[in-house]
């Protein structure tokens, strides 16, 4: 047996001009989450509990695109999704389109543990959350000033952005913000046409 191991991520596709202090904030958060996971592993918590614990922590911090600090829809609202899977028995749970559940990953865990299904979405997921008594908050809780500004930029550029922090001053060549026609993730929408 090789002992325990843990990895966390906060998103891929980073603005090459991300200010240094933002980079430091990200590293501090990643380090904090790693340490939460490491102390849980040292206390012999099973892997499934540790991944839920760490992702809950990441969801609660507005720095990354999940939970509080989630990206906004074209309507300026938040629709979150999450999944969790236990390799021991390959059990899994997932939710999509949740708007008032404070921790989507914990609701996904409840889908795995307390429902006959592996995936619940939108109003069904919200109804299940109410029945399970999980903590629920207004959609505003998840919306940050910064993301309202980012949505404005994306709309002006007529584009859809994945985890990309476009620079606030001008758009350099690396940014995912592009001119018409409508693009997704910096690629012509035709790339996804098959979808």
């Amino acid at each position, binding site marked *: 047996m090789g002992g325990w191991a843990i990895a966390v991520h906060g998103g891929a596709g980073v603005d090459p001009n991300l200010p240094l202090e933002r980079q430091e904030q990200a590293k501090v958060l990643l380090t904090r989450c790693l340490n939460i996971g490491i102390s849980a592993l040292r206390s012999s918590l099973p892997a499934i509990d540790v991944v839920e614990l760490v992702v809950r922590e990441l969801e609660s911090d507005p720095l990354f695109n999940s939970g509080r600090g989630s990206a906004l829809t074209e309507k300026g609202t938040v629709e979150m999704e999450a*999944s969790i899977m236990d390799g021991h028995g390959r059990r899994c749970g997932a939710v999509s389109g949740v708007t008032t559940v404070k921790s*989507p990953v914990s609701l996904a865990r409840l889908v795995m543990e307390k429902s006959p299904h592996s995936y619940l979405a939108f109003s069904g997921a919200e109804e299940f959350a109410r029945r399970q008594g999980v903590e629920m908050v207004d959609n505003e809780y998840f919306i940050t000033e910064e993301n309202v500004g980012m949505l404005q930029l994306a709309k002006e550029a007529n584009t859809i952005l994945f985890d990309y922090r476009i620079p606030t001053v001008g758009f350099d060549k690396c940014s995912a913000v592009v001119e018409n026609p409508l693009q997704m993730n910096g690629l012509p929408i035709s790339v996804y046409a098959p979808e």
Partner: protein
Amino acid sequence: TVGCVVVDGEGRCAAATSTGGLMNKMSGRIGDSPLIGAGTYACEVCGVSCTGEGEAIIRGTLAREVAAVMEYKGLGLQDSVDYVVKERLDQGKAGLIAVSRNGEVAYGFNCIGMFRGCATQDGFMEVGIWE
């Protein structure tokens, strides 16, 4: 998007992913994160969590692919991650983190940077953003 993969002291793997999705996305859009086998996967062999362009990750069934390459091609964890990131994304941009039941940890990405951190029981710990 955020994610965590863990193998515990008993060699059991698990994975979890959570996201707000794409900025300016259509309401009702579902990405890779909640799709088992695409954004998240765990089995006896490994645990995987992906991030990046959801549509590319879904089409490549990226998370399950790492486990499949380990099972059917017999590659190690990092080689499997490198193979899948290189061969399964077409023009898409994404990244992933993974652990194996042997206590290994690995990650890979083909875009500019990925916020990630990893640690193992023998004391290794790394937090990074760029290549």
